[in-house]
């Protein structure tokens, strides 16, 4: 029995790959579950994409998903940002699937590793930076210096704005990773507690009902957190995309 609560986050190689410079191409359990998440999304939306006027169940699901993300992009960034809709959609459903798949027994939660979430979030913010410069040229740097301030204030505001810009990807990745990891550790600890109480025998055996209830509650909470964190990640992507289109806000 694995009774180390951190054991579930261990990376195990499945197929050894060659070392390409600094990149280790070993196929691990993390990569496997990422692939499963991606294929899960592809299969779901492959089935859900219909062209019937009166949608069936799956097509309704697809349409609800589309509208959910489309409204999110339109409300937070504006209709001109619909160019980025596929990106936000992909990010949201990848994270949602990774989080929810991680809730299954024996599954590996890819989003509980900082490396994965950091790659996602640095890509998002990097894309905002590049697209902002492509779209606005050097005017993009005005997001670091809001207009209409006394000259002296810029010495204070510009570093503050730069720090908060750099903090974005860090906050984005830490939030997702910490939420997923903390939840899974908590679950495991509670579950181990059940086994421990039962192994003590006697009166303690009856007391095991308390952690059983606790674990059940945490499972429900974790499902909420899994969906919520995907939502937060997607909506923050939209908020950051705002800077591409509205340089002076």
């Amino acid at each position, binding site marked *: 029995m694995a009774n180390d609560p951190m054991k579930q986050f261990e990376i195990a190689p499945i197929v050894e790959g060659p070392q390409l410079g600094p990149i280790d191409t070993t196929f691990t359990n993390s990569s496997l579950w990422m692939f499963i998440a991606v294929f899960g999304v592809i299969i779901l939306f492959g089935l859900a994409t219909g062209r019937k006027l009166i949608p069936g169940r799956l097509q309704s699901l697809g349409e609800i998903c589309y509208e959910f993300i489309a409204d999110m992009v339109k409300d937070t960034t504006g209709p001109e940002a619909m160019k980025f809709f596929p990106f936000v959609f992909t990010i949201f459903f990848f994270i949602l699937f990774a989080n929810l798949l991680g809730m299954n027994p024996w599954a590996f939660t890819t989003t509980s590793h900082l490396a994965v979430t950091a790659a996602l979030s640095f890509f998002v913010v990097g894309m905002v930076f590049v697209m902002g410069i492509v779209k606005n040229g050097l005017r993009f740097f005005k997001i670091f210096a809001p207009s209409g301030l006394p000259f002296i204030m810029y010495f204070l505001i510009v570093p503050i704005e730069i720090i908060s810009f750099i903090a974005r990807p860090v*906050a984005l990745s*830490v939030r997702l990773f910490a*939420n997923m990891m903390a939840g899974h550790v908590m679950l495991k600890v509670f579950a181990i507690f059940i086994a421990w109480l039962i192994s003590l025998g006697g009166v303690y055996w009856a007391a095991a009902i308390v952690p059983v209830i606790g674990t059940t509650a945490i499972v429900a909470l974790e499902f909420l957190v899994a969906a919520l964190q995907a939502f937060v990640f997607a909506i923050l992507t939209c908020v950051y995309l705002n800077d591409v289109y509205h340089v002076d806000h």
Partner: protein
Amino acid sequence: MSDKNGNSSNSPKTSDLDDLEQRLEDAKQRHAPEVEYENDNSLLGMAWRISTELVVAVLVGCALGYGIDYFAGTGPWFIILGLVLGLAAGLRNTFRLVLEMEAEEKKRLEKQGKS
């Protein structure tokens, strides 16, 4: 609704449809509390956003200050400056988020008032 019913009295078919629509509308009203729930969720998301952004901004400020100190060898001065600026950035982000939330809340209330 009343003039809709008045129109529909000409043909019985649309009257049936209107009746159905009315009943659907009523059913929707009866199961309305979903709005509360959705709002609750985004509040929880907001709480996560504010707490992490506050902490991370300070860490990033410190890290930047430490980096400058490390490469320029300027003693503890930049890490202190980074700490202060990081705190300021975190507070500014939080402040901005709260203002945003307030504006959204106002919009929502106005919408509710209209409907």
